[in-house]
C-alpha cells in the first residue's frame, strides 16, 4: 500500500498543485505502479462527477417571493432609515409586528364593546387566528375588565399581553 505522503502527492499532481520538481517522481510512480494509476483514476472520476453536480440545484421559491424578503431588509437602509439586523429571522420580525398590531386592535375593540353594552356582563370576540378577546363590564363599580387569550400553546412572552382595567 502506498504511503500517505505519496497518495497526497498524487492528488496534488491531479489538482495541478504539485511543484514541478516533484512531478517527475509522481510520473515515474504512475508508469510503474498499477495501484497508483488506479487511485489517480478514482480521484479523477470523483472530481469530475462532483464538479458536474451543482448545475441542477434550483432555488425552490419564485423570483418575486425571494426578492420580496430581501427588499424588506434593505429598503429601510436605502430610504435613510435604521437598518434591521440581518441576523434577525425575517419571519420572527413580521410576527412581532403582527402581534403588536393585533394587541393594539384588541384594545380598540374592547373600548368599543364596553361603550356599546347597556347592561353589565361578559363578552368574548375572536380577533385573530388563535387569539380571543374577553371583556367584563360591571356597572355597579363602573369598571371594565379586558384581557387577551392567545391559547395555552402560544408563547408571546416578549409581547404585551394581559388585563387592562378602565374606569
Amino acid at each position, binding site marked *: 500500500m502506498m504511503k500517505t505522503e505519496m497518495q497526497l502527492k498524487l492528488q496534488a499532481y491531479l489538482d495541478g498543485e504539485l511543484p514541478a520538481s516533484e512531478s517527475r517522481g509522481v510520473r515515474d510512480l504512475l508508469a510503474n505502479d498499477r495501484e497508483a494509476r488506479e487511485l489517480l483514476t478514482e480521484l479523477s472520476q470523483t472530481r469530475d462527477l462532483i464538479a458536474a453536480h451543482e448545475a441542477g440545484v434550483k432555488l425552490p421559491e419564485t*423570483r418575486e417571493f425571494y426578492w420580496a424578503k430581501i427588499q424588506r431588509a434593505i429598503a429601510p437602509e436605502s430610504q435613510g432609515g435604521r437598518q434591521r439586523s440581518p441576523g434577525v429571522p425575517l419571519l420572527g420580525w413580521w410576527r412581532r409586528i403582527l402581534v403588536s398590531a393585533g394587541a393594539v386592535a384588541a384594545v380598540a375593540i374592547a373600548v368599543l364593546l364596553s361603550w356599546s353594552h347597556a347592561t353589565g356582563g361578559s363578552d368574548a370576540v375572536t380577533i385573530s387566528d388563535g387569539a380571543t378577546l374577553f371583556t367584563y363590564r360591571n356597572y355597579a363599580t363602573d369598571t371594565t375588565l379586558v384581557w387577551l387569550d392567545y391559547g395555552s400553546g402560544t408563547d408571546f412572552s416578549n409581547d404585551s399581553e394581559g388585563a387592562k382595567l378602565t374606569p
Partner: protein
Amino acid sequence: MDHSTATDDALVRFARNGDMAAFEELVARHRDKLYARAYTMMRNEDEAIDLSQEAWVKGWQRLAQFQGESSFATWMTRIVINLCLDQLRKRKRQRAESIEAMDEESGGVERQMPIVMVNPAAGLEREDLRSRIDEALGKLTETHRTVLVLHEFEQMEYKNIAKIMNCSIGTVMSRLFYARRKMAALLQDLKKAG
C-alpha cells in the same frame, strides 16, 4: 432603462447609486447559484434560503467595497460561503464532531478504503446521477463537504482553502483526499443499491 439587457458591471454601478431594480436584476440572475452553494454546504433548504438572502442583504450593504477584481457572482458567492462557514462553526461549537471526523483527524481511514475500479457514473441518467451525488454529499461530515465545495465548485487553491478554514495546507490535502475517497465509495455503494 432596461435592466434585463445590462451587464452585471453596469447593474452594480446603478445599484451603488440606490437603484434597487438593478439590484433585483442581479439577484434574479445569480440567485440559483448562491442558493445552490448554500444548500450544498448546509444540506437544508430553509437554512440555504435564509443564508443566501442574508448574503444578498450584505452584498447590498457592501456594494461600495466591490472593486471588480473578480466577477460580481464570484464576489457574492464568497459572501454566502463565509456566512455558511460562520453558521457551521456555530453548529460545531454546539455539538461534538462525529466519530467519523475524529477518525479522519487521527489519520489513516482513507488509506484503507479499497480503490473503486468502476466509474460510478457509467450508465446513469443525468438526473439520477445528480440525486445520487447529492445523497452522497449529504453523508459527508460538514468539514469534508466544505473542503470539497471550496475546491471542486469554487476552484480554490489549497492555500486559500487553508486560509478560509483556518487550518494547514496539509490538513486541507488530507481532508480533500478523504472526502474524495469517501465519495467514490459512497457512489459505488449507491450504484450497487440502485
